[in-house]
């Protein structure tokens, strides 16, 4: 494969985005379409101006062709993110965020920033949120031991970042604990 060795064992962020695109998001269609069958399921019918739930991949496709408006999910608003950010900076644990929030937020911001109110503020809030969580995951890694690492509320992207390091270091730690170092004396 053409991927560098370090990336071969883990998933790349674009792949994660693709996986996240399977989730449903609400849109306001601008075209009408009957109920159509796709591999993952049958979606539609699209009857403007009524809203409809479609997978994100389809929504982005339509949006890029200017055939729909995307309704941002509830958590992608200034108030919600602001609230979570304050919680994140005040507590030690990670606060609960939708599992694939980073991917979905990125997709929506790229494709449909005009359907969001205050996209710049949302971008900066997401950035702050990411930095706060990164700091916590860095600290969390220090608690790594051979049998478990519990980081509740960690999200898909973040897990993906830690994964390669975490797997190898856990392997090393397991070996160390299995063959304990010979006692100092010699």
């Amino acid at each position, binding site marked *: 494969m053409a991927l560098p060795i370090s990336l071969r064992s883990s998933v790349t962020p674009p792949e994660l985005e693709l996986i996240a695109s399977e989730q449903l998001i609400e849109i*306001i*269609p601008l*075209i*009408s379409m009957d109920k159509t069958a796709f591999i993952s399921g049958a979606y539609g019918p699209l*009857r*403007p*101006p*009524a*809203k409809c739930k479609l997978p994100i991949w389809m929504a982005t496709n339509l949006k890029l062709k200017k*055939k729909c408006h995307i309704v941002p999910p509830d958590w992608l608003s200034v108030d919600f993110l602001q609230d979570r950010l304050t919680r994140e900076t005040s507590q030690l644990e990670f606060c609960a965020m939708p599992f694939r929030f980073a991917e979905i937020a990125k997709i929506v911001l790229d494709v449909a920033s005009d359907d969001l109110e205050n996209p710049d503020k949302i971008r900066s809030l997401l950035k702050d949120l990411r930095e706060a969580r990164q700091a916590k995951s860095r600290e969390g890694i220090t608690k790594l031991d051979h049998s478990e690492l519990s980081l509740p509320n960690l999200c898909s992207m973040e897990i993906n970042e830690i994964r390669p390091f975490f797997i190898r270091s856990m392997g090393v730690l397991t070996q160390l604990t299995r063959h304990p170092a010979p006692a100092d004396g010699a």
Partner: protein
Amino acid sequence: MSSSKVLQNSAHGPGTTYLAFSRDGSLAYTGGNDTLVRVWNTKEGADQEPGIAVEAGESITAIAVGEDCWLSGSEDTEVRRYLKDETVMEGLVTSGNGAAIRSLAIDPKGKRVAVSSEELDVKLIDLEDPLKISLLSGHIKCVRRITWHPSGSLLTTSGADGKVIVWDVSEDEPKQEKIIEGVIPAVSDPESPEFAHDCSVIWHTSGQYFYAATRTHEIVTISRSTWAKSSTFSDDSMLGDVTALALSANGLYLASSSQAGIFIWSTQNRRVLYKHPPSPNATVTQLAWSPTQNLLAWTDSEGILTRWPQPIPPSAPDPVKRSGATSVTTVPMQRKAAPSLFDDDAVDDNKGKDGAEPEPEVDLDNDDWILDDIGDGLQDEPEEQRSRKDGLVKEMVSVTKAQPAFQPGSTPWTNKKRYLDYNMIGVIEATDQDTHHIVNVEFHDKTARKGMHFTDHFKYDLASLGERGALFACPSENDHLGHVVYKPYGTWASQGEWTYELPKDVRAIGVSAGGPRATKSQRVMSDGELQGYGNVVVATNQHEITFLTGSGIERISIGLDGDFVTMVAGTEFVFVVTRDGATTIDGSQNLLGTMWEFDEFSVLQKQKLPIPKGSTLKWIGITQEGAPAIYDSKGVLYTMPRFRIPLRASWVRSLDTNTLERREGKDESYWPVGVTADSIMCLILKGRQEYPGFPRPLIQELPLRYPFRRKDPKEGPLEEHIARESMLLNIKRDALGDDLTSDEISRRELALDKELIQLIQHACKNDKLPRALELTGMLHHIPSFDMAIKVAGFYHLVGLREKMEALKEDRMSDDRLEGAREKRKR
């Protein structure tokens, strides 16, 4: 163009000079750089010897006049109080803590004075008790000018930081109501000439809006309700900064000064009426109208007081006498009971006022008080009105304000934009560009129809977006007669478009376009053309509605026996709402809804609208299934599902928005756009907002729910759903004609049967046998009966089982569907 002689007096030396008239107009006070306040008699000429007040130590920076005293503020940080008409100092009101006084303003009642100085806070001092001081903090630089709202409950401060802050001072604790930025220029250096310019906010006497001089050399009107700019005064001959503004006593004239001289504007049409040439080298620093005479005076930076007697010639309305149109409203907007647009005896009602003449044209920007009459008009106490009308014998004793004719889906002008029609097909928006409008038509479903926009020189005020084309109507103006224009879709070129001219006295008061729904995409209008361009209905002020075909052929003119209120056209019929006679005394609008079919003009339905007393009709429309729907001001939606049964249908309450869960704790109202099978599509309006604004809000869906009262968490929603679905199926079945049934109906009946079985199971469990039997009778399909029998068997209810089996036998013997078809044929 008045060129009457002005009287000039060299009042003070060069420097910023301030001016105020006494409340009775007999005296004028000027204060200037030479630390003196001179008191001039307005009746005497230029050669009078003015009284002098000498107490100030440094230049005078502000003068304010109260009911029984007048105040002067000076750079020596003191505010001095003088007896009315005298030059003897009574005492000190306050001292500025070492900061020069910048502005003084006494409220219209003469009770409090607002003092601003080089300090950041504005002090609000009670004149009776100078120890009662409230502080208003909010500006980040000193406040240059202060003015009061005519009601005395709002205070506006213009600061050197460029902000105008509106304070609500009606309570003991003053509160900031609004901060307006970007209007006045930000000038902080007291030495600069711009600092001396009068940047105060001039409230109109009605209290609804104020004028201010902007940093862009214009005068803007800002409305009190929206705090947004609603119009501009501009004239090509006005040069440079506007240095001072003053409003005449009755609010009809606004005087402004600039490098080009003194301009007097009419506040209604924002045109310059009269001018006075400027004095070279001197900028006018304060303008003031006499409160009791036709007199305008100003002081300038050279220290000269100029008085212009009779600036308004006698042929024009007097600047002092009040007319009925202008009156003060207090901060909680209370409607005045006075001149309504519908009572002819408005003139008699003015007996209490100063014998005014019929009021001049109401300011077109200020639409809200026309429309308020609809909702709140019913708050008029009938007894009070009746007693006023005692001397007159009129035919109509009814006192409820009749709601005026309206186009459903349209909004009034706000900030030069309005919606002409907003429905399930699309939106028609209009923007006012003063000489013409720009009309923008956009569709929700972009595959079916292509949007367009055009410049409209006729100023269309009515429009309807129909299934087959868009309809516009305009009233007659000087250069053209009123007419109706129909633009079919598909070919926006002039081919299908036609104009229907109305003769001189005829005006369209309602328009609607209907027609069969498009079956194919109308971008390629090949097959669609065979189906025609739809139908056009126009309601005119001649008490009739005219039907035309989609290509402009007149078909029939049907007379209406009442006042036209509104109408909407669907695929097969047009639904017209008229007023049967007059409104009743106890608050009912007395509306009657009639449906005429397009093909034969037969009356399909004629039913009174069930709008409760005290509420008005807000919207009418046609659901996706073709049934008419109405929405009243109390937030209840009614539909007429059995409309196909001629003359037998009634209005069904389909949704009471007051009981929606999302309504809890929120102050919101709903503006309907359309109704589908299960939901109402509407726009959510927050708070007191009555109409949607711009940019266009998104359509939300609210589920329909019959306002049933059963609170049982399991059974209640099921029963409601079954009732609603059955009604929906009725609509569909009515449209069947000769067919026995259709696939969709069978499917829905099956789903409904499943829910009925659930309810039967519930009833059996709770031992409600008669209910279970009744529910079994409601089942549609024979296999469902078997299911019900099984359920009864499961609960060991033998008696019930037998009865159910008997019902099944009955059902099998007479075919339900055939029976229904027979009924339809009748």
